[in-house]
């Protein structure tokens, strides 16, 4: 007994819609392939250039630049042992010293900018 052949319907959705669907399903390689097909066909949909940007692989920018980081054991110990009273707040730590805390990250950064800590502080949200 043979099976009835199903007629393939022409795709009515735009490339952008189909790419979005794949992206939202975490099918990144499929989305990249579909994007490549669209570009190869010379499609002019306005979102395609944006998809091209966000579907690109990571792009190396620079090796070096900025100060190195350092051992954060003291900050980690502080988080584990002393952070509970600051739940729902951002804290800025340098070693075992609490430099600033607030529900607002902007406020914490403003305090840090005003006081200019000697080394790069660690920002942490206590949840």
């Amino acid at each position, binding site marked *: 007994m043979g099976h009835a052949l199903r007629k393939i319907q022409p795709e009515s959705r735009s490339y952008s819609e189909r790419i*979005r669907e794949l*992206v*939202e399903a*975490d099918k*990144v390689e499929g989305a990249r392939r579909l994007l490549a097909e669209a570009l190869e066909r010379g499609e002019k949909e306005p*979102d395609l250039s*944006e*998809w091209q*940007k*966000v*579907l*690109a*692989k*990571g*792009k*190396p*920018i*620079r*090796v*070096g*630049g*900025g*100060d*190195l*980081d*350092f*051992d*954060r054991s003291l900050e*980690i110990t502080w*988080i*584990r*042992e002393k*952070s*509970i009273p600051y739940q729902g707040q*951002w804290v*800025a730590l340098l070693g075992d010293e609490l430099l600033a805390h607030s529900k607002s*990250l*902007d406020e914490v*950064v403003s305090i*840090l*900018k005003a006081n200019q800590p000697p080394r*790069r*502080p*660690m*920002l*942490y*949200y*206590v*949840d």
Partner: protein
Amino acid sequence: MLTLNEAGFTCGRSRYIDHLKAAPEVTAKIFVKISFDDDFESTSWAQIDTGAAWSILDPTIARRLGYLGLEGLRVEMDTWMGRKAGFLARLQVRFLADDGENYTTEATFFISPDWPPGRTFLGYSGLLDAMRFALDPQANHFYFGP
């Protein structure tokens, strides 16, 4: 920093932690040190998640850096925190080294104002898929580079 067949393999090394929070966590994670700063140098923790398709940026950090106002592609993603609406954007993230050199890369992040603060994830697509990284779990060292 690390070499392979006498050629450079990674440029920097930092110490990662596997348990960060005050409350004990069930399983170990990998939290590495990063920075997104444009205007002020600070260090934040982000969780490596090679099983995640996308990286997710803490919306509080995104707001502070002005990224919430970016015009990105609107998407809805199913996450372990439920379905979240947001957008995808290309940002620069710096992996901070304790030894060797820092490494800055451009990467794709999912940004959702509904995502809870304090949780930045580094996923595979558009970030880890184009860099070298290695772990030394005996020493909790994270190696990274282009």
